[in-house]
């Protein structure tokens, strides 16, 4: 594909999508939680910009609305809520370094190649720009998944979860000019409720194990199955 031969809008969309992919890598490697939240907000902004640009190109007013919802939710509201939680749990200075940074980033690169391969069948009836954006959005989804696997901090896992949502939104916008409005509203509502629930959970987890290190949660489960402590039930 030659970038120069594409229409200007497609070029811009591709560049923005590539930057979103870059931000997914940055999110994966960023060990400081505060900075990670900012990276997440930037990613949301890039995705919203793609939606607005696609809307401008296709003169589709509903895409402007999707872009506005994303801007409000992913760029402003959710980062703000995470910020507040961070302050409330006094984790501003907390860092959560990756256990194997080199290995993780290699896996991330492999994921991008894999996503490109999965998106290959799309190429035959769409021009190549769309195919590339679909590959990128799948890569962002899977990188979010990887982030949830390798990070131990509950808050970092939530960022991975929300980054997956960004990838899904990008896929919907790029491939199909957005899902029907009622579905997008439903998805946005679900994401918002999920974020509120995450907030409740952080406080509960903090109360019960006095840390947000999710590894300590799995130790509990292991002891149930191994049948050691447990049962303080009345």
């Amino acid at each position, binding site marked *: 594909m030659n970038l120069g031969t594409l229409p200007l809008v497609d070029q811009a969309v591709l560049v923005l999508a590539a930057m979103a992919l870059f931000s997914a890598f940055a999110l994966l490697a960023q060990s400081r939680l505060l900075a990670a939240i900012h990276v997440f907000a930037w990613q949301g902004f890039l995705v919203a910009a793609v939606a607005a640009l696609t809307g401008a190109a296709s003169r589709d007013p509903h895409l402007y609305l999707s872009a506005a919802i994303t801007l409000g939710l992913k760029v402003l509201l959710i980062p703000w809520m995470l910020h507040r939680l961070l302050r409330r749990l006094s984790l501003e200075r907390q860092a959560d370094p990756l256990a194997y940074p080199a290995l993780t980033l290699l896996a991330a690169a492999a994921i991008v190649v894999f996503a490109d391969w999965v998106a290959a069948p799309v190429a035959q009836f769409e021009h190549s720009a769309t195919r590339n954006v679909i590959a990128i959005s799948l890569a962002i989804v899977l990188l979010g998944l990887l982030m949830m696997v390798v990070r131990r901090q509950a808050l970092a896992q939530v960022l991975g*979860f929300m980054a997956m949502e960004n990838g899904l939104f990008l*896929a919907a916008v790029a491939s199909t000019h957005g*899902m029907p409005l009622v579905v997008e509203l439903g998805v946005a509502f679900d994401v918002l409720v999920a974020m509120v629930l995450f907030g409740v959970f952080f406080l509960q987890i903090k109360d*019960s194990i006095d840390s947000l290190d999710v590894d300590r949660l799995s130790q509990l489960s292991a002891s149930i199955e191994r049948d050691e402590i447990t049962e303080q039930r009345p």
Partner: protein
Amino acid sequence: MIWLLLAVFTPLAGTLLLALIPRARMAGLANLALSALSLAGSLGLALRVLHRGSLHGHGFLVDPFNVYLVVLTAFVGLTTAVFSRPYMEHVHLAEKRVSPAGMRLYHSMYQGFLFTMLLALTTNNLGILWVAVEGATLATVLLVSLYRTPAAIEAAWKYFILCGVGIAQALFGTVALYFAAQHVLPPGANGLDWSTLYAIAPQLEPRVMVVAFAFLLVGYGTKVGLVPLHSWLPDAHSEGPTPMSAVLSGLLLNVALYAVIRMKMLTDAALAASRTPALAGHLLMGFGLLTFLTAVVSLHRRHDIKRLFSYSSIEHMGLMTFGFGVGGPLATFAALLHMLVHALTKSSIFVTVGHATHIARTQRIERIRGLIRTQPAVGWGLLLGVVAIAGFPPFGIFASEFLLLSATMASWPWLAPMLVLGLVIAFAGLFRNIQPMVFGTPPVDQQAVRANMLPVMLHLALVLSLGIVIPAVLSNWLGAATMLITGAALR
């Protein structure tokens, strides 16, 4: 239409209403009344569909495949509400494990869960289906952590994360499906309407559909409890309140499987002319068999009674997935019947288990002993439930498993011995745990509790009668659903 609205939107009104009722006792009664109203609506809907055929329009679709699941969902919702009222009152007032605010949350989210289930079943829009299934996760996640023990919080976190991730894959699959549809869509049609998609399914691009189905299967499969994505299920079942376990096992797993089968119908039609026409079926068979075999082995060496039965749920979901994967009218009919009888039996078992844990004041299998002597109704209820779930004649599960086995014998004879072996292992695993709980000598200070066994009796009687004779109405419906899914009638 009015019946449909009554069935689906009564629980939505209930979600808002019950959040406002401060008295736990009153909320329990209101919960009961709302569930009864929803059941009345779903019965009216069923009669309407029976007399005048499928209902289609305004974004809803009720055909023979989902109408019996709607009735089942509303019915189990009602009987579990009957059980939940005294049970949660006991937890709230006698054990003091739940605060008044917790009770409000519980009742509100119980109705919220029923709403999402009924919406997921009746909607015609695959996007709304996704939103509803995700909504079901959100409604139940706080209920799993209701007791606020570290184990409960951990279980809820795992449930949230695993199902959230899984369901995100399903959304990607839905986007891919929408993308495939956009190129062949008639102008003005909504590309996420299942009925529209079904009409144009043969024209959908096969290779994109394979990708879409893989993502949808992994996504909704997480909620079905397919191995290796099942690990949230035992945790959520064992740590949440028991009425929640009953509706999770009885309803949520079925609805997730329903979503997978709707997608399979589209994929089968799209792939019919390709080189791998049965790819979706083979994927389901593989996942189903793996799930079934893993779960039957896991039934042994359990220490927690609710974990034991949640593994049994995984086992049966694996069996159903396998049945739908085998395809063909007989196996599909068997799997549809199995969805019905498993939901009835498993929710009745969880109700009994709830009473048993109150009697023994623990969920640990080693410390639950001599239920028959302490309280015969609960002991016999548990025993009969396990006899039914293990697939003994004359209960309905025997009928569906027998049909499934004969279908497997006909098309995949070398897989049938694995199924039989699995069923035997499952039987052994259940009975080695159940036998001492029911017949052993009770601890000295064990006392009977106030137990309402009516829901259990009703469920088991239904399962029994389904094992002896399937009423013509139901067999017509299941036959029509089989026709819809496989395109061939049952001989």
